[in-house]
């Protein structure tokens, strides 16, 4: 038995090994067990995961921007500290996910390069502007709420490193949603203007948050395969419906309303229903024509370039230390 590196894409295999790999993969799927980085997996499974996990990572990284812009404008020191912790979490989530994606054989540098070059996608939600302080509340409550709804089933995704990253992320997300809820609750119980500001933010973020679950089931070609591979556990519409049900309850506590007069519980299907969503807008934003797409990418590029000297300095220091150490070793040897 040869010792193995932890991560790498396997080399070309003989047809027999390929068949054995497929058989093992099918068994793992049937048993609802987990695939780990060194296991054989179909090329399409690897590709799907790599796309999904890297897009997810990019979303966390780009997702820092709408909120980071409000750190210096937070209404109190406490809120500022909370917001900084949240933005730091998003950076962490991005890194967990890049790590998971790297186990599939793609370098993080390449993924970041693709993001900066505008070749990679990320969640359309982050291309909407955060216009008022109440948006920090609505983003936490609706956007992070939808993310949690999506991510909790992903903790059981068939790819081990992805599931483990999601467990860690979900643990941290719940603070995000609660802090957002609290911001809205406080505004809602404030002056009429503050309450109006909270309602306005909810009105603007509601539909984009519902669209975070992806296109309707009959228009989501990849969903079926992802469900067969135990990556996705519930359909887009199923998750969206659950989310609407939760929001209906919570918005009452906030003393606000959802901007959707067609929300109702369908007694026959036992599911929550909502009004029509503008899927044309969704496609436009995904295609790069949303309100903030260009700005988000430009900012990411700037941050990457501005950080270059830090990366260089760290690498230079490490090289210097290493040179010193090998010098000392030589002296000892002499």
């Amino acid at each position: 038995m040869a010792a193995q590196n932890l991560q790498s894409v396997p080399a070309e295999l003989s047809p027999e090994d390929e068949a054995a790999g497929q058989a093992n993969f099918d068994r793992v799927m049937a048993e609802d067990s987990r695939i780990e980085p060194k296991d054989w997996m179909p090329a399409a499974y690897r590709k799907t995961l790599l796309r999904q996990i890297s897009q997810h990572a990019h979303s966390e990284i780009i997702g820092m921007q709408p909120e980071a812009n409000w750190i210096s404008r937070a209404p109190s020191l406490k809120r500022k500290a909370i917001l900084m912790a949240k933005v730091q979490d998003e950076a962490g989530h991005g890194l967990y996910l890049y790590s998971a994606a790297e186990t599939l054989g793609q370098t993080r540098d390449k993924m970041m390069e693709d993001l900066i070059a505008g070749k990679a996608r990320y969640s359309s939600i982050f291309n909407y502007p955060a216009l008022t302080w109440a948006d920090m509340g609505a983003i936490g409550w609706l956007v992070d709420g939808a993310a949690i709804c999506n991510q909790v089933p992903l903790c059981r995704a068939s790819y081990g490193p992805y599931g483990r990253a999601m467990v860690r992320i979900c643990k941290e997300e719940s603070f995000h949603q609660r802090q957002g809820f609290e911001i809205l609750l406080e505004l809602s119980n404030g002056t009429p203007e503050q309450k109006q500001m909270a309602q306005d933010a909810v009105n603007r973020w509601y539909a984009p948050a519902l669209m975070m679950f992806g296109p309707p089931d009959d228009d989501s070609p990849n969903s079926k395969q992802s469900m067969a591979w135990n990556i996705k556990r519930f359909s887009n519409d199923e998750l969206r419906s659950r989310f609407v049900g939760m929001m209906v309850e919570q918005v009452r506590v906030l003393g606000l309303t959802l901007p959707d007069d067609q929300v109702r519980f369908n007694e026959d299907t036992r599911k929550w229903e909502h009004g029509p969503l503008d899927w044309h807008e969704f496609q436009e934003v995904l295609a790069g024509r949303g309100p903030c797409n260009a700005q988000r990418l430009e900012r990411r590029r700037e941050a990457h370039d501005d950080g270059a000297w830090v990366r260089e300095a760290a690498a230079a220091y490490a090289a210097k230390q290493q040179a010193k150490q090998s010098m000392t070793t030589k002296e000892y040897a002499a």
Partner: protein
Amino acid sequence: MSPHGNPEVPASSASEVIRGAEQVPSGAPTPEAAATETKAAATTPASENQVPSIQPAVNHADRGAWGLWEVFVRSSRGLSHVHAGSLHAPDAAMALRNARDLYTRRNEGVSIWVVPADAIAASDPDAKGSFFESPQGKDYRHATYYTKSEGVKHL
């Protein structure tokens, strides 16, 4: 609109950040560092007003030295270090600091190990059958195999 009026415009200009290799003390410590310095100097915008080009100012070779580290965290005294995840860092000291910031933001640990990922040898998953001996017929290695003592106290 003033930067402070529109939250989607950053309050502080990114140009306040000191950038470029001018800040690195002159005299390259190693040939590698010298190469990096020269490259950075060549690509640093001549003027702060110059719009950064779409190409990153520095190509990604600068992180070539940032290897992959595996992180193990001891959650409290008396417990083993458990694998938490991985990260990139240029050296062990930075790997430890990054691991602290990435994996212990909520008191998850009292001690951290970082190990270069390529220093870890792993068993081959395909050799499952031969490497891990079959437990078949070896029930006697478990206490539950011995049933005659059932009902006897403290045994």
